[in-house]
């Protein structure tokens, strides 16, 4: 990314029509400790540069010194909004390296809970995105539904946010008593609630004015940058790993991929809303088809994947989250590398923002749905 000169002397609007504005790292709408250096002409963004790394914890390096089961909790802390999905990448990678056969019930429960996690992640995105654009009420309405999901997580995993959801070879526990009813209740109530968000936003003329035509990125550009997830689908590329390389129980389930047309903020907003509906549909189906049986495969006492490397990725709420794992045959990985969707999506920020106003930068950061825990790792 190219550097913006940060001027140190006091300058005025006319001395230098190009003003440098530091947005963040402590700013209400950079979604964490992201620093965006904006070069402005009036209020129009001429150029911007992202300064990241304020939350760097060296997770990939730490993973080299831990046993395989110990690494899973660190994955939760990447994209802490979608801890369940992140955990799934890791356990599935190790399981596939080990060549384990996971019982179908575990697959179904994993599917249900990752889809719920996708909904909760999208709800938090909707909440903060709406807040950035000034619609405060949507924030708390969305958090209310997210709370329902987090309650299910708490019952199932014992934690609400960083759940440490999965274990290699299956799950720590079977679904708790009343799991089906709780999920069913949520599935029943959720469509009404989405309609309410849409009432407040989708057709509102201010919302339209703030999102339509903002942060446009064409399909070709999006693919070139390497966008994934709803940010890519908003541009009209029907790419979804749940379809193209099905994992867990997705191959048995029926769902559609919502795809935008213009690649602007409004399209991405609609895509994510529709994805929540599709996720609900998946949960509903999976709940019906969920078989009985054990939830854990037989696993060796010490996990030692055969030497070699392996890449596995799933469709996280933010995009393709992947794990590249190199094993030297010992009980600790030789190298772990995360394919972070948010970091790669953030690359599109400059292209999306230049030519827009400061207020749009906020909307665009919101629409990219970034989580700094994952960007900085």
């Amino acid at each position, binding site marked *: 990314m190219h550097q913006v000169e940060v001027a140190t002397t006091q300058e005025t609007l006319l001395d230098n029509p190009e003003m440098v504005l530091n947005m963040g790292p402590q700013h209400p*709408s950079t979604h964490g400790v992201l620093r965006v250096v904006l070069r402005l002409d009036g209020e129009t963004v001429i150029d911007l540069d992202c300064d990241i790394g304020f939350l760097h914890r060296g997770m990939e390096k730490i993973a080299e010194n831990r046993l395989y089961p110990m690494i899973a909790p660190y994955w939760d802390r990447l994209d802490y909004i979608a801890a369940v999905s992140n955990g799934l990448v890791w356990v599935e990678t190790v399981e596939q390296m080990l060549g384990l056969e996971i019982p179908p019930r575990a697959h179904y429960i994993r599917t249900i809970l990752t889809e719920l996690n996708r909904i909760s992640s999208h709800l938090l995105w909707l909440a903060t995105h709406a807040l950035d654009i000034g619609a405060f009420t949507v924030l708390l309405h969305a958090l209310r539904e997210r709370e329902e999901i987090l309650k299910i997580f708490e019952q199932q995993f014992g934690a609400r946010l960083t759940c440490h959801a999965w274990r290699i070879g299956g799950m720590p526990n079977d679904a708790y008593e009343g799991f089906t009813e709780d999920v069913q209740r949520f599935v029943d109530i959720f469509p009404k609630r989405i309609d309410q968000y849409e009432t407040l936003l989708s057709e509102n003329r201010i919302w339209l004015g703030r999102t339509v035509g903002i942060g446009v990125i064409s399909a070709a550009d999006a693919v070139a940058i390497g966008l994934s997830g709803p940010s890519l689908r908003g541009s009209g590329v029907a790419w*979804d790993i749940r379809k193209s390389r099905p994992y867990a129980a997705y191959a048995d389930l029926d769902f559609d991929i919502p795809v*935008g047309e213009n690649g602007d903020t409004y399209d991405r907003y609609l895509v994510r809303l529709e994805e929540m509906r599709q996720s609900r549909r998946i949960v509903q189906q999976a709940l019906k088809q969920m078989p009985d049986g054990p939830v854990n495969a037989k696993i060796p006492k010490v996990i030692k994947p055969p030497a070699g490397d392996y890449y596995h990725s799933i469709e996280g709420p933010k995009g393709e989250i992947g794990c590249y794992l190199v094993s030297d045959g010992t009980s600790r990985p030789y190298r772990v590398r995360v394919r972070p969707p948010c970091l790669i999506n953030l690359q599109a920020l400059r292209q999306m923002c230049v030519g827009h106003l400061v207020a749009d930068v906020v909307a665009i950061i919101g629409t990219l749905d970034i989580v700094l825990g994952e960007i900085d790792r």
Partner: protein
Amino acid sequence: MTSTFALFAPPNFLDDLLLRFFGEQTVNYVVWPFIQIGAVITLVAVWALYASYLERKISAFMQARLGPMRVGKWGLLQPIADAVKLLTKEDLVPEKADPYIFRYAPYISVAATFITFSVVPFAPDWGVITDVNIGLLFVLSISSVGVLALILAGWSSNSKYALLGGLRSSAQMVSYEVSMGLSLVGALMFARTLSLSGITTAQASDSVWFIAYQPLAFAIFLISGIAENNRAPFDLPEAESELVAGFHTEYSGMRWSLFFMAEYAAMVVVAGVATTVFLGGWYFPGVYRLAGGSNNLYVFLSLVVFIVKMAVLLYLYFWLRWTFPRYRYDQLMDLGWKWMIPASLLNIVWTAVTIFVLQALDGRLDTVESLNRGVNLTGQGKGVAVFMGFAGLFIAALFLAYLNRHSRDFNLKKQRREIKLVDVPKGAPAVARAAADNA
């Protein structure tokens, strides 16, 4: 003064008491105004205090929350706790700030809003502090001074966010002031006076609120008023998600609370003026008869009527704020210059046409009673005026739609686009399909 209404005797009793100590002149010109001013300032300050409570409660209810609950029953003492906190907080002045201007800007803001209350007629008789023959102009001119506070606060903070906020807010207030002032002209043409009390009496003598004659002007005034107060959805200067807090980013403690107080007091000013000019002020049919000849009771009931009308408008403020997203700065300016100002100009022309039509019809339909103090209309005349008023709404809408037919934001206000649902076959790679979609 019957004994039944002894409760409402105090004003007269006070009057007698005061006359013992002061001469009549002094009582009329000095003591009473001071009592009234004190009462209004106290009430408005209490309102500003409790507006924060109301705002938090109403927003909480709209968001399925409870709001403040911990200090006192239902959190009723929360604003007092907040006030104590704010007053005892350290008063920070940034090192590179212009110290004098930074310190005094909040006072300008508060003074500019509080002075305005001196001409708002809360009720007839002793409910008015002073009746100035340029009342409306006075309100507009004093509230325009409030801009200075914001621009000075933003500039003196020596912070980029504050400067941007200050520039934004002053540009916003200057441009919305125009439409706000122009929208009142229509009502003035019916009332034929600038005095706010005069406008109220004109409505009372006609028994019609001017909102019926001037629905368009009322809408313009309300929108411009909300924008003028920097309230959501027009709260650009303090848009917390973009500019952190706009012009008062660097303020803390008491000076910040002064800005806060000025904002809520300014809401009351706009609501009060809207009530006076468009909603009939303290006039409500039947109140006079209800008072049964007791002047003080009548004034008191009128005061209640006025406050109720104002409360409805103030609720609207909260309601809008917690429902809508925020405009972008250029959209806000677009709305101000391309929608509000043409609409208010059109309103003036249309009102002139209305009055002309009323006078022209007078020979046949008997519409106008007199043109002396306010346009006194007969029943038929009122009908015509109301019809013209509502016709004006549609004419304005068509006119504006034509005027802005090329505007980006106008054309965006279309209903939602459908999202394509792509059903990729199970297990099949989507890449080929995506390529096909793109082609």
